[in-house]
């Protein structure tokens, strides 16, 4: 009697397992139907669901999406080739977009709507991809530790020796750091850029993400740093007294470094017209739904940013108008430069 029970219990477990597996396999391999569907691979994760639901309500076209990391999703589209299910590829950072063009992931678009909505410096000259949101990578500091007259206002001055042991910066594996360094190379030439980055490496504690940098500045481990503006906005949303201030960098010169998230229609899209329609909507009527939740700035100059960043950080600031496609292409050079000067 005693030995019977576990055996029968075990076999019922097996049945359950077999049933769920079959269900999973069947349900995943029988997707698709007659409905209009756009399928999106996205390296950007935040607030997709809300924006896409709104699009479906307005147009009746449903959206299936798959999040992941940018490089891997691009590899998946390439490896899938003509078999790919992706109609749209969304990703963060101009470097990722530039690489996708190079690998032939995108099909160029001819869209008046997009050309009007997205400023020329934030899209590919050939129409392969379009920026959809703007993130500024700028300087932040702790007002208790930095006197008003010494607040850093340029990326370059953070390389000076008075900032030794006072900086927190993001590691070189991160695309935002890579793009910022790429923009330095583009503006100053390689040698001067190397000097600046070497100065940063000398002065800074290198960290794994922007939130750690902001928390370390708030706690007093360092006095200043460089982060994407929306990370600070998020912390301010939870705690309006969070003790870190933002300053728009290089306002007397070229302006603050801005990066984008954006996307394009894939070369082997099943329904390119629908995919294009989605991108057009995201750049116009869907801008607010797409950018507001993450406190990003809209690419479309006619759309207002959400209240928190509008009131706290402002709208009127000078942006570096270096073309995203230019610094995107310089990303690999930025990585090599950081390797050479010992910026981890």
């Amino acid at each position, binding site marked *: 009697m005693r030995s019977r029970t576990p055996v029968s219990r075990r076999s019922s477990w097996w049945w359950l397992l077999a049933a769920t597996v079959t269900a999973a396999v069947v349900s995943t391999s029988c997707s698709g139907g007659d409905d209009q569907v756009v399928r999106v691979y996205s390296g950007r994760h935040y607030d997709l669901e809300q924006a896409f639901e709104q699009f479906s309500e307005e147009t009746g076209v449903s959206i299936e999406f798959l999040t992941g990391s940018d490089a891997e999703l691009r590899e998946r589209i390439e490896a899938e080739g003509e078999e790919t299910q992706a109609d749209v590829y969304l990703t963060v950072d101009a470097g990722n977009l530039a690489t996708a063009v190079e690998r032939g992931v995108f099909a160029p678009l001819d869209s008046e709507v997009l050309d009007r909505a997205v400023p020329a410096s934030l899209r590919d000259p050939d129409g392969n991809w379009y920026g959809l949101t703007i993130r500024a990578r700028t300087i932040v500091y702790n007002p208790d530790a930095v006197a008003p007259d010494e607040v850093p206002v340029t990326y370059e001055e953070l390389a000076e020796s008075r900032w030794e042991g006072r900086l927190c910066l993001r590691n070189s594996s991160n695309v935002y750091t890579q793009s910022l360094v790429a923009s330095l190379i583009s503006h100053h030439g390689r040698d001067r850029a190397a000097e600046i980055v070497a100065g940063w490496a000398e002065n800074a504690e290198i960290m*794994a993400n922007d939130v750690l940098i902001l928390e370390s500045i708030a*706690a007093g*481990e360092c006095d200043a740093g460089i982060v994407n503006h929306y990370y600070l906005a998020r912390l301010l949303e939870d705690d309006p007294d969070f003790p870190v201030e933002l300053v728009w960098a290089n306002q007397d010169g070229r302006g603050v470094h801005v990066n984008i998230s954006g996307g394009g229609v894939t070369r082997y899209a099943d329904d390119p017209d629908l995919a294009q329609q989605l991108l057009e909507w995201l750049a116009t009527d869907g801008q607010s739904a797409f950018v507001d939740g993450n406190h990003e700035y809209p690419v479309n100059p006619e759309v207002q940013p959400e209240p928190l960043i509008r009131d706290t950080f402002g709208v009127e600031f000078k942006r570096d108008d270096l073309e995203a496609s230019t610094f995107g292409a310089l990303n690999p050079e930025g990585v090599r430069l950081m390797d050479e000067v010992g910026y981890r």
Partner: protein
Amino acid sequence: MIDRVRLGIGDRLSLIGWPVAAWLAALLVVAPVAFLATSLLDPNLEVWRQQWDTRLPGQLYETVVLLVGVSIGTLVMGCGLAWLTSAYRFPGSRTFGWMLIAPLAMPSYVLGFLTLSVFGYAGPVQSTWRSVLGENAWFPPVRSLTVAILVFSTVLFPYVYLLARAALRDQAGSSYEVARSLGAGPIEAARRVVIPLLRPAIAAGTAVVMMETLTDFATVQYFGVDTVSVGVFRIWRGTFDRDAASEFATLVLVFALLVIGLERVLRGRARYGQAAGEAAGISPRRLRGARAWAATAVCGSVVALAFAAPAVRLALWALEEAARSDRSLFSARYLEFLQNSLVLASVTAVVCVVTAWLVANARRFGSSSATGVAARLTAVGYAVPGPVVAIGVILAVVALDGALEAIGLGLPGALATGSFLALAYAYAVRLLAPGLNAVESGLDQVPVDMTSTARSLGRRPGAVAAHIHLPLARTSVVTALVLVAVDALKELPIVLLLRPFGFDTLSVWTYNLASESRFEQAALPALSIVAVALIPVTMLSRQISRREAAVTDQEWRPGHG
């Protein structure tokens, strides 16, 4: 008697069948890796030179230090705690026996982040420290190689602990008792009998630990440690050069081959099989007074630091987040994530362990060294970082699809990529090794004589495997199932890359939040991974308790010398 020499047709078939199965498994594992290795045919010398001039020497150094440090850490903790909980009785020893497996449920990237947030400059520990000892009080650097080694050791020691304990219980324990009853002192008995018998288990466990450490690229970055795996990802994501990245991935592979070689050496040439069937195991001695409480304190602090405290921290975050936002604590799709995670982990565990069982038995029956090579090859997948395996699987499946189409048997499009089958295949490629290691270390303890005797008495290999090997290595087989299932639950890069539309798991959910640095929101899914991973861990611990109860019931206690 003469009859047994003549082989029947069934015998011949099954003798061919075993090695064929082993080689088929090896081929399936190696194929995706081989697709990527083709990049080596045309190496990008410029990238190699540039890396060698800049970061590569440092990466090699830090990889070696990390691997050596973590193996020492896990060996000391794993073997020490296994011995303590097996050989002695002290307050709570039974409970600790299974609770010490729990850290296995904690993904290392989660513990790494928690360590930084608690012990980092901005965290509560250092804040208190400064308020007591002054603003500039010295505190050991937290973002360091040393702390990274401690974190890895803390989450990975159960791999060694589990296998060492299983070996102590199944085989080595009773030998220790025999040695002691024959007059050997405890240290001599341990040195001459227990350690040699434990060697396969320790070697297998440590190899798993080293591979896990080697292919990690998330946790190390929290601590600013620059390993060869980090190098692969920097090249891939930073310079967008996939070919150069896969060339560097072969460097990771070289490290892995060294680890496998080391394991072979440690495991030794000898087969330490035991003649006993159901082993009596070790009979624990009772510790008294201060020594007993010290033992309790050691086990208690390990459980607290490695599991309880982090779990509580996550739970508090999840509650804070729930109080702050008006959104429901559980996403509407929570049950779906949970179900997907469970299905994927179960399928992977079963596929891997069944395959591992075939391969391990094939090695036992086939005397040829070719089968041994096949067995070693199946471990290759574990040595390759997850995303690399995933891309390799896509390429392999697409190639297979093309080949089948050419002969008019095209797969339906959805099956080729992004299907559950491709996903399960990639998981199996990646996680076969821990399963095989555990199964083999169990099978190694079954004496070769016993196999050959059964064979010579006319039993077919299949029957020997089922009726003799399986009962004797049962604990190891269950251990293998648990190890693979837990690993599969925690695995992230593969499911991220290969999953079909709409197939999100708990780890994908955690990733989506954590990659946006929304750690408070990621607390709930992370905690769910831990909770779900506890299910197989509990199943295993129940088995351990049952067997221990059986051993204790026999009340076999030799007199002390």
